[in-house]
């Protein structure tokens, strides 16, 4: 259940992040308003950007770990796949 939630959350973050950073939402913030001396659009773009990073950081800890895989020549390939459920 928790896996599923984290995976859904990462879809939502990616999709909403994309929408927020594209027209028609983006030009909405392109107006002559300043926030602490910085134009609104600059604050908006960098703010969304930072929010995405924080969200990705938070979610990266919740997503299930893959079994550590070392791409070594002498690794029997069978060891590389076990323990992975249906995607």
């Amino acid at each position: 259940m928790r896996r599923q939630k984290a995976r859904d959350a990462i879809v939502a973050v990616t999709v909403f992040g994309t929408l927020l950073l594209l027209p028609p939402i983006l030009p909405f913030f392109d107006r002559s308003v300043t926030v602490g001396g910085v134009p609104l659009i600059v604050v908006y773009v960098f703010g969304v950007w930072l929010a995405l990073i924080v969200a990705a950081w938070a979610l990266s800890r919740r997503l299930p770990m893959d079994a550590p895989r070392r791409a070594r020549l002498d690794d029997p390939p069978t060891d590389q796949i076990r323990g992975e459920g249906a995607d």
Partner: protein
Amino acid sequence: MLSANAVLFTALAYVALLFLVAFVSDLRSRKGWLALVRSPVVYTLSISVYCTSWTFYGAVGSAARNGLEFATIYLGPTLVFVGWWFLLRKLVRIGRIHRSSSIGDLISSRYGKSTSLAVLVTLIAVIGTTPYIALQLKAVTTSFQVIADATGTSLLGIPTRDLDIRTGFWVAVGMAVFTILFGTRNIDANEHHHGVVAAIAVEALVKLFALLAVGLYVVFWIAGGVPEVFALPTSAAVLQGSDTFGIRWVALTFLSATAIVCLPRQFQITVVENADENHLRTAGWLFPLYLFLTSLFTLPIAIVGLATLPAGSNPDMFVLTLPMQHDQSALALLVFIGGFSSATSMVIVASIALSIMVSNHIVMPIALRLPRRSAGVSGDVKALLLVSRRISIGVILLLGFAYFVASAKSDALASMGLIAFAGVAQFLPSLIGGLYWHQASKSGAFAGLLAGVLTWAYTLLLPSFEGGAIPATFFERGPWGIAALRPQALFGAEGVDPLVHSLFWSLGVNVVLFVAVSLCREQKPLERLQATLFIDVFRNPADNEARFIRRSAAIDDLYVLAQRILGAEQAHRLFRDFARKQGSRDDLPQPDTEFIAHLERQLAGGIGAASARVMVSQVITGETISLEELMKLVDETQQVIEYSQQLESKSQQLQTTARQLREANQRLKALDAQKDDFLSQVSHEVRTPMASIRSFSEILLSDADLSHEQSTRFIEIIHNETLRLTRLLDEILDLSHLERGELTWTLEPVDALAVLRRAVETCQGMADGAAATIAVNGETGPVEVLGHGDRLAQVFINLISNAIKHNTGPSPRLDIRSSVADRRLIVDVQDNGPGVAAADRDRIFAKFSRTWASDRPVTAGAGLGLAISRAILRRMNGTLDLLPDTGQGACFRVVLPLRQTTGTAVGPAAGEQL
């Protein structure tokens, strides 16, 4: 001002440092100390090879010209990395399982290990990358000349003399040496270059540090704070570019997102050099953070540069010229080293990636097609590969240098970054389709790629030569004067941004052909197998391959082959390890299909999937691809998906069932308790009359002196008590039948009022005995309900007799009112007695609920009357309730639905009753 020698010396010292880092890392990794080299942070830093000198210098230039647009180049990759779980994770997994050595290898492997596809991808990569390398050479040369120029006019950021070709040449040579030294040391089965990655990571730190340093300096020393920067008049000019957030913004974001996946150097670092899939977890947020920090000061530097540097200054050099203007030589030198870092890291990784592709996909296939030489010598293929890679690196850098020389005097390079992005974006349909679409076929991928890249070359690459080799009229009027074929206005699409125009047509043609041809052409078995192994990579182990392809070969032939490609030592280790895995003590494994598949994958890591397949095919004696097994695999995959879906719904069903069972169990427990209670009540009710009967019988039996009256009286009591017992048992049975729904009587139309009158008559005697009066009011006419006359009478009699019995008032009176409303008959039985005590209201309808009145007559029932009455009425779809206490005695209400009839049907039925 810095002297050229000082700059040169610093740069050389820095290069020496990089050599040292690479050397030490290589040495450590050879000894197995991989902790540092294989850390997720180093991995993330090496991905920042995305930020070339185009970013380092050019982002500020872009911001100065187009405002925020520069950010799109970093937002696209940010989104791809934030969503790493979907695309990148799958890409890395596939890359690692199938030992992909390059993006060309991965695409060719997916489409049935096709050599032709690999060649096409390689050519596109070379065409797209060469000008990009030239761009880096130009950036290093320009920055060197700007920083080392003592004339003072260099603040314009434009070299006073022509570009120094010699500088560019030596830079190219230096990079070639470095790359050959650390990039082609070995033919590793997994193409890991620890030394290179370590050096790239160091360079990533240096360029970020340099950008942050110059950014902080510009904002806080030169401008005096963040608000001050945006208060400069140039701020408005920079930010209020017309239509920044239009279709070009979308196209650039898409393009950069595509580039971070498709650029050969990014694929090399992200997929091929990946040491642990979990590193993506860190890179998913750390790489976007790196991009964020890189871009943080771009706007301020552009604004301040435009405001304070002389008019006509080159915005692409603001990062360097701003510190120079304020005589900050050390900072300027740091910036130069940062720019140098970003250029060299790109060139090194790109040339490694390209050399692997060229040697694996072009040189190897040619060598394999040459007439076979005599018996292969151990390591000969490996040697050939190493040599071809070294030569490739040299040739690629030479090509880049040649391009740099040829375009040194034009501005064509400035837009080269985006042109290259659009070129490699042609990989996207084949790549994504290959990862998610089973039907995607080699023919489709080939057709899409070829058509896409030709369209790209015609609409974007060709116009970049305008004015040079190609006359301007070609672009204005189209080839042979055909306007519809004008490169920047295909089919009349005029007035569109050239990049958007080219992207639309090239990717459009690419996707359409890819899909259409894939749908038309049947896949070959190997394609179908690879498609399944790639798309369901998280479900199917790669060694599944052994299930479908049955091959046999002499182990000696395989050993010779492995030695030729991997070298004696590695081949020996590979064979020995597999033999151990097979459980053999011997150093040579059984050459079964599984081993051959394993060997082929290991070889593919060195020479590419297509070449590995060709080489292995040369020594195997028989090969069959089992179509049946293949179909089974597809079926199995489907089954697994369906099965997991079924499981999910099953588990939900189970949860529901468990909940229902729990509820049922609780109901059962409650019923069980009720049953116990009932039995105990029954026992009590039976024992009481039995006690009288036994006691009096014993008196009669034991006492001979009883008078005749006494005997008669005792026998009468015994008789009454037996009647009471019988009645009780009858009632219990009756109630039990009613509750179980076993009707011993059928529902028929009855006149409820006639029944009521009969009941009143029956009770009249009892009422007279108690000196009670009964008044009946309300409806007079026949009111027909579906019921049973006698049973309904029983209910009325029960209510009336209860009212008489429990009415202890001085002048007992009963009011019976009937009315019809809402197609229902309502009968209220009201007495003027003490009413029902509040505590008893809830339980008078329960079984054995008689209240323990001291004056209870002997004939009183066992307290089942109301329960039975209610059960009877329920059978007739009616109800029996005690109305709320009004302080005027108890009032019971019977409600019965009228018989559902058509209007005329009431007449005859009513007539019968009369």
